Structures are given as C-alpha cells and as structure tokens.
C-alpha cells in the first residue's frame, strides 16, 4: 500500500513547479519580439485546443456536445455575459437530453 498523502504531496509539487517557474524565477526576463508575438498568440491557441475536440465528448453522446457547443457559440456571438453563455449551454444540453433520451 503506497502512502497516498506522500503521493499527493509529490503531485502537488510537480503541478506547482511548471506553474511557478516562469513567474518566480524569470519575472523580469526580457523577451525577443518573436517570443513576445508567440506568447501573445498562446491564449487563443490554448483556448482553441481546449475547446476542440473535447467539447464533443463533454456531455455524453457527441450530438449533445454539438448542441451545447453551438448554443454557446450563438450566445457568445451576441457577446452575452459569460454566465449566460454557460447557463444557456447547460440548459440546452439538459433539454436536449430530456427530449431525446
């Protein structure tokens, strides 16, 4: 039987180090313009990669993911509050499940 608390502590450290290293060790690092442009792109790229294809499998069957995703895109397109987008998407999936299951 492994010591789970020791494992969680090690996991915590291994999760923390990549989060902290750039912020703590390289706070004032001067960046080449190329690197800066690259890092400016990162949030949008990460968002894209986090959304797709994960969204498809996020609510059970793929078509529920598609319904929820499309409703979120529609609500977000009209720049509604983030909470409205999230709640609307959950609601759409919930009703789709009630109707289709």
């Amino acid at each position, binding site marked *: 039987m492994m010591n789970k608390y020791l494992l969680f502590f090690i996991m915590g450290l291994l999760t923390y180090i990549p*989060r902290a290293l750039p*912020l703590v060790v390289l706070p004032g690092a001067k960046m080449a313009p190329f690197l*800066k442009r690259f890092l400016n*792109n990162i949030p949008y790229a990460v968002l894209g990669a*986090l959304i797709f294809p994960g969204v498809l499998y996020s*609510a059970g069957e793929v078509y529920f993911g598609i319904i929820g995703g499309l409703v979120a895109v529609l609500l977000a397109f009209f720049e509604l509050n983030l909470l409205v987008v999230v709640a609307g998407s959950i609601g759409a999936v919930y009703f789709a499940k009630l109707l289709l299951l």
Partner: protein
Amino acid sequence: MGVDNVDIRVMNGSGIKKGFLDGIPIALGYWPVAMAYGLLAKSVGLNFFECTTMSVMVFAGASQFMTLNLIASGVGMGEIAAAVFLVNLRHLLMSLSLSPKVLAQHRGIRALLSFGITDETFAVASVKEKYLSSGYLGALELISYSSWVLGSAAGFAAGAFLPETLQESMGIALYAMFIGLLVPLSKKSRKVLFIGVLAGILNGILGLFISKGWAVIAAAILAALMVPGTGEGGENHDE
C-alpha cells in the same frame, strides 16, 4: 515593457471585486467537474480526507482524474508522478505567457499566485485583462480554487443525489466558458479566430496519436508559431 507605464500602486489595490466576478463562471464550471472527481474518488476507494487532500494540494483536474485511474489500476507512485508532470507541463507555457502581465514584482506574491494557474484561470485572466493586479488574479484564483476543493468534498459526500441527466449536462460548462471567451475575440480579430480554429484542428489530429495533455501543448505551440503575432501588449484588435 509596457508595465513601466502603469501606476502599479493603483492597479494592485483594485481588481479584487472584478477578479471574483470573472471567477464566478470558472467556479460554476468547476463545481460539477469537482463533484464528478469526488464521486470517482469514492468509487476507487479513496477516503474523504484523501479525496479532498488531493484537491487541496494539486488543484489540477486532468491530473487528478488520471491519478484516480492509475490508483485504481494499481500503478506505482513513480509512474503516477511522471504522468502528472507531463500533463502539467502545459502550465509552463501558460505561466510563461502570463508572467509579463503580472504586476506584482515580489517573488513571494508571484509564488503564491502561481499556485492557482489552471487552464481556466489562465484563459480568463489572459483574455479579460491586459495587466494583472495581485488582487484581481488572487481573487480569480481563490474563488476557482474554493469551488474545486468544496466541490470535490461535496461530490464525495452527496453527489449521488443529483439527477444523472443534470450532472451529465453540466459537463458542457467549462467548454461553454472557453467558447464564451474565444468567440467575442474572434469577432474582433480574424487572426484570433484563425489561431483558435487551427489549434483545435491540430489538437484533434494530434490527439489521435499522442496523449491528450501532450496534444494540447503541441497544438497550441504549433498554432501560435504558424500565425504571425496578434499585435503588441496582448491587445486583441487587428493591428
């Protein structure tokens, strides 16, 4: 860097309220995921304290779900640790991207703020704000962290009472939030749209061959490299 032009004293005092408000969608998104984690932790035989301790110490959904799987299949500590490290390497990239925007210069404060950098807090912080005061980022992280830890405990204790249909429906929450962040930005800048779509497609392809954690890292790096910059200082409008 642009930070020199900002009145840091003003920025650092403010932002707590905005941080909490911006954190509410994250907290709502985390809650069902955390409950699912709590439920699963119970089912693989962790006790209540083990379940919540992991959430308190690690605060990383992907790693924690993966760990439950690995514990259930009897994998040793070394392998679990290595897998966790790989999955979390993507935070190196996010932290590197956030670092110039974080106004606090004190290393202790930066060390503290580092703890709460997740996919979601990173996404909201980097898209909503140009520069990050400690109050804003701290509040954003704190409400998210609280939801994660309390949700884990709640999931372990009582998650079974929620109707299953509603639990499953809430799985869409985090994705809806990501969409809610990316779509308005894409309207303002074709480049943002292009980067996001490209990264999604690359991730879909890469995910067929490599693990999910690595696929996200590789897709984000490739998409960010393949498209020229979106302008200086993190501004989102076209150049």
